[in-house]
């Protein structure tokens, strides 16, 4: 949420985040190539670079994919989510380096276009051991390119968050393609028990965490079956069970609604942040505004509008508190969005 356009709104936290990421990557590559020179003295520099970039990108992709569910399971991981898009773009460049070096090394010396050579160089689709694994990596790289190219808030604002999210969910397809790429490629050749085990562990972490987080999230996704009161409002529970300045999330009229407590009052607004659809119900009230836990977008309690000069707004819902219980009108108020 920036007042005037800047390509990247740098702040101390983003700089720290990116510096730590780049330092980690540099250390990994140096260690990989350094140790590799001794452990595999016969591997060429190109081979070590291709492998270093590929393993680094894959490891980073695992980290990126685990951040989402980890944040849903434990709020202490939220700082990792803050700048996850930069991690994603960095990971794309590592993967691109791996792909580019591999194509130059293995496909550039023939008389066929290197990209065509990747696609037609191996056609034994009926074999597992000789399956053409390189096109799988190329397909994953194309998806990662699309995601990196549209990662900026410019695209988020123009595509709208739901479309952008849908596009970026393709990362799971890219991940599955990469599992195929590695399993049918590297694992068929020089993989050791350790490298095979590490890949299995990574898959268990990614899919396991997502499934656990998904199961946990399915509870608040169940529509409330509490009776409507005489005014058509839905009883969403006791005010006392909501912590001060925090929210309880319920599903009303097909979408999640965050019901915040502010002193003796309750306020309800859509749980979906306008930025990247982050969960507002996991945020807090700061300075009279609901503050998104992901990147800090703010929305006023009374009308869901971001404080000026910002123009975002989320739908809000009428609430009443009667006998200590909170009732919410499932019909949203007209939007407070400003031009």
């Amino acid at each position, binding site marked *: 949420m920036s007042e005037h356009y800047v390509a990247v709104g740098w702040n101390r936290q983003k700089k720290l985040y990116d510096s730590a990421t780049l330092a980690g990557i540099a250390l990994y590559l140096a260690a990989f190539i350094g140790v590799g020179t001794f452990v*595999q003295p016969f591997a060429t520099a190109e081979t070590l670079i291709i492998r270093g970039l590929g393993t680094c990108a894959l490891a980073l992709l695992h980290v990126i994919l685990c951040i989402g569910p980890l944040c849903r399971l434990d709020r202490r991981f939220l700082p990792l989510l803050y700048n996850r898009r930069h991690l994603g773009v960095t990971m794309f460049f590592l993967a691109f380096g791996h792909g580019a070096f591999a194509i130059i090394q293995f496909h550039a010396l023939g008389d066929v276009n290197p990209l065509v050579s990747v696609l037609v160089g191996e056609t034994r689709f009926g074999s597992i051991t000789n399956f053409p694994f390189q096109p799988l990596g190329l397909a994953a790289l194309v998806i990662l390119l699309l995601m990196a190219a549209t990662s900026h808030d410019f695209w988020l604002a123009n595509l709208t968050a739901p479309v952008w999210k*849908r596009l970026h969910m393709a990362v799971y397809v890219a*991940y599955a393609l990469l599992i195929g790429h590695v*399993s049918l490629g590297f*694992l068929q050749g020089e993989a050791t028990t350790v490298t095979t085990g590490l890949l299995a562990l990574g898959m268990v972490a990614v899919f396991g965490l*997502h499934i656990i987080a*998904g199961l946990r999230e399915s509870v608040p996704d169940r529509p409330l079956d509490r009776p409507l009161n005489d005014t058509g409002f839905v009883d969403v529970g006791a005010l006392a069970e909501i912590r001060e300045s925090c929210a309880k999330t319920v599903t009303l009229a097909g*979408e999640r609604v965050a019901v915040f407590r502010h002193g003796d009052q309750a306020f309800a607004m859509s749980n979906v942040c306008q930025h990247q659809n982050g969960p507002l119900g996991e945020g807090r009230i700061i300075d009279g505004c609901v503050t998104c836990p992901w990147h800090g977008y703010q929305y006023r309690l009374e009308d869901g509008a971001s404080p000026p000069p910002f123009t975002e707004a989320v739908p809000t819902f009428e609430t009443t508190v009667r006998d200590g219980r909170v009732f919410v009108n499932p019909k949203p108020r007209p939007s407070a969005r400003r031009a």
Partner: protein
Amino acid sequence: MIRSLRLAHRVALPVLGVASFGIFAAAVATRPQPPITTQYPAALASDRPNRSEVLALGDTFDVPGISLGRFEENGKKWLLIAPNRDPGRPDLLAYWSPMKPAGKELPAGVILLGALSGAASVSLSLPTNVPASGGFVVLYSPADRTVFATAQLLPTGR
């Protein structure tokens, strides 16, 4: 995330997970074992030479991790090339050479002895036109067009 997307996410992840684990399991199950070439003469197939005896002859390559020995069997001379681990090049060929290679190229007059196979020890017979001692054993990678390792064949009984 909006609810419809979250529900799609909840279905897509297990499906992709099952597919990924399926591919991974199939790939691991059908992974080929590294090919092993054993070129021991039939007489030695059940009674391989004691490697420590063979290696005591002491010829060594100029890269670590590959031992070289010689033995005689049935009047034929044999070389035993025994890598401690996979040299990391799948295409190594062993040559006898009358002179030490000067650079990456094979010298003139080399004689092909046979191929290495990963970390497996191989025994290669020395052709009769190769002198009993002297010369060099050169391991060469045709893919990289480079000499990978060289060992001098010292006179036996030194």
